[in-house]
């Protein structure tokens, strides 16, 4: 998974670190669910992840947007992904919080670590 990153010369180091953090965010939040209910860090991190992270990873593949567009689409995609994964499990009678959250975490990791639009642009 990490090979495309290390071989991408154009990416700045800070961006790389950011992408790795983004890729890890879902798994961290999954780990935080082990904390007792009402823990502020669990509440803040969980809300922030569901609100922004999957979408933030996905919008990387859509070049040419400015900051606000990126943010809006990141939130819309995150909410949509969370709703769709959760209701798929509900409709399949297979609800499980770790499964839903793990699915989102995997989506986030994959979208964050796959070569982004900027890299594909270089290749063309």
């Amino acid at each position, binding site marked *: 998974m990490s090979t495309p990153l290390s071989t991408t010369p154009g990416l700045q180091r800070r961006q790389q670190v950011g992408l790795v953090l983004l890729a890890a965010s879902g798994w961290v939040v999954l780990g935080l669910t082990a904390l007792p209910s*009402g823990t502020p860090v669990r509440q803040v991190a969980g*809300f922030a992840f569901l609100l922004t992270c999957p979408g933030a990873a996905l919008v990387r*593949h859509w070049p*040419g947007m400015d900051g606000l567009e990126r*943010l809006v689409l990141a939130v*819309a995609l995150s*909410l949509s992904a969370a*709703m*769709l994964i959760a209701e798929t499990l509900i409709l399949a009678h297979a609800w499980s919080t770790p499964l839903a959250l793990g699915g989102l975490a995997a989506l986030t990791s994959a979208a964050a670590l796959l070569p982004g*639009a900027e890299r594909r642009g270089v290749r063309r």
Partner: protein
Amino acid sequence: VICAYTEARWDLLVRAVGSVFRQAVRPAEIVIVIDHCPALLRRARRDLAELAESDDGCRLTIVENTGERGLSDARNTGLRYAGGEIAAFLDDDAEADDLWLSYLCAHYRDPSVIGVGGRVVPQWERGRPAWFPTEFDWVVGCTYRGLPEELAPIRNLMGANMSFRRDAVMGVGGFSPALGRVGSTPVGCEETELCIRLTSRGADVSLLYEPQATVQHHVPSSRATWGYFRSRCYAEGLSKAEVRARTGPREALRSERAYLVSTVPSGVARALAEGCRGRPAGATRAAALAAGVATTIAGYVAGRMGRTPPVPPAGPEVSERRATAVALAAVAALPVAWLLVGISLRHVHLAGMGDLGLVSVLPVGFWAGLAVLAAGFGLAVTRRRLSPPLLCAYVVSLVLVLHGTPAVLYGTLRYAWAWKHVGVIDYLARHGATDPHLGGDLAAYQSWPGFFAGNLLLIKVIGVRSALSYASWAPAFFDLLVLAPLYLIFRRFSQDQRLIWTALWLFCLGNWVGQDYFSPQAAAYFLYLVVLAVGLRWYSSSGVAAADAQVPATTPPRDQRAQRAVMLGALALVVAAIASSHQLTPLMLVTAVAGLVLCRRCSERFLLVVAVLLTGGWIVLVARSFLAANLHSIAASVGHPGGNTQANLLNLSHASRGQVLVADLDRLLSAAVWLLAAIGVWRRRHGLRADLPLLVLALTPLPLIVANSYGGEMVFRVYLFALPFVAFLAAASLFPSERSGRSRLFPVAVIGVSVALLIGFLFSYYGEEQVNYFSPREVAATSWLYSHAPASSMIIGPTGDLPWGEKNAELYRHYWFALDAPRGREQVLANPVQALCDDLTDPRHPAAFLVFTRAQAAEVDTTGLLPPGAIARIEAAVVSSGRFRVVYRNADATIAVAVDRPASVTPVPKP
């Protein structure tokens, strides 16, 4: 092309035409454009024709300016009449050297060259004034010190001596008539703006400056004066500001910056050095340089601030002081408003809430705080130096004050439906599945569970027992959230920040329908706006960019199929979330996208296909059992627009006086927003082609009024879905263009509109809070019920306006007698004790509870479901009858059971 506007320069014109006839390279045609001067036109047709006849090979055409008066349209007219490939412009008071055209034309062999200009040498009528610095020769339209001495690429050519490829100029729309001098009024820069537009089209085109192509420019003594110098400098500054507004700061001022940092200082140094050597003219020239720069900057600053007096303002200090005061007030109003609202909220007595809801208990300080907020916004949005972050702070503050106030004041979740929505999440959490055959209020949610499933994930991830812990803040959250996609949509249609933020402001004030609570429609509405924002930005059909709309920073990669697939896939994700969470929003989305595609304002037809497939697919695959069960009632309301519009206004004749007022203000507010929008459409009628998507999106929800009553709410929903676009057009009634709304009285207009709409909003949105609010005592009563009513209990009450249903909702039955068919209602009214006793002792239910609460009574009284005071009478009759036993009672709630069959008081077994 020679443009002339006055007979006074006849001799010069004749010399100019003569000099063109003498050219070594003969032009194919000479076009003389007469700018709205009939006398000159007659004389030219009579006398200049002789000149042409004496010459063969070169055609002379004399035409009249067909456009607006002014040099720009005169030049455009010339361009249209000229037949050749290259058009050269010569001023009517200039005389070309014989080799002028030879030098200019030589460079057009290079296809990347789209324009060539040359040197303009001043020919002073009475000699050059000693003080007149050569650095400022542009004041008299001549080449100034600081321009290259040999052939070089240049940003802009000088109007007196320039030439272009004709199709290139026509391709960008010619000279802009908004700029350019009219008669002798010295406002210029039209050629600068044109040149910037020409070169910004591509990196591979260039404009050249060829100093050897020389023309002599006549400078009359009237222009060799200090007064002309000053007013021309000021006008140049104004024009530069206008150019900057059109082309952006980088291009507009690139040359000027270089000119200011190198040419002018060295000029001053040279002049001063001369002065030191004992020539007084040097000193005056240095002073003239400094004064020229200062005046130009003053003009530029005035132009940036939107003031366009032809002479420098008389009292700059006064206006400066006023501007500072306004700026201070605009910033200070914000904390003052917060302070007033914050202090006033400590003194609200919710128990005193009357027929007008929250409006009846809000203290004066709250109203004052909102008035200060509106005043601050009015000042901030009409300030000369606009601050978007400040405007953003005002709009965010408005949302927080309007929608955070109930959350802060109540401490309980407002609105009975919000409690039921919390209950749906609870159902999913306990069952891990939906039940499409579940009946009752919650049936629809079982078929469109997206929002609830998402919230289930949220409560599990953040580790809270139920969504009750955050649902109170949903209105503020969703109303803040929608601002972002709205901003994206609005900036497609204007780059005037005043218009954009006023539109957002009006949207918040007009959004009184209350569909922003904790609900699927609130989330779906946000997603709907995101899809439209993306669609308008990335799939807008090319070639319809508005005159003042922002051009996208990067053009979408239309031709790259992979990229298109990524974009469509991402949008499909959002559309799928909409289609699976709400019944109405996907239909609204389909009609909106269909409208855009049909009007050729959306280039991506697959977006429509995706929306139709996902919406239809969801209904067929998942929601079909709900649809089958409800098909009859849905079909019954199709095609009854009268019934569908009237449905929501039921019983208004029985409603309380306060509610009639609230309903009237609802309609008045909605009508006011639409009326403002109509005015906005009228005021922007010249750019309506670019605004077409707004009109389409404002009108596409309307057909759904005919389609369905949607429980009597369709009118409100249609209003809500049209509101963003209506709000933008309404804001356009105040700021139709960048030039409008600059007068000193204008803040008053903005504040007046804001305050009027704000009052309407407060009545409309807060007017029903007597029903929507649940006191802690009412919540305590339902909590008691939950812990004492066994599964399958029957809950009986006047209406369902209870803080109830947030858990185990499907385990209880309920009967709301005030909502029953007229016969049921009449029975209860005629003999309440007997009728309710029969219900409570129905052997089909293991237990039955009779509930009376404050909110239920308020709902019945304000909507007129039963005659005024009926609930209080029924409750008193029940309690005093002796056939009921009161099992729970507080100031706001009473729960009773029938004596004949006392309810078991065992807690509900936890499932």
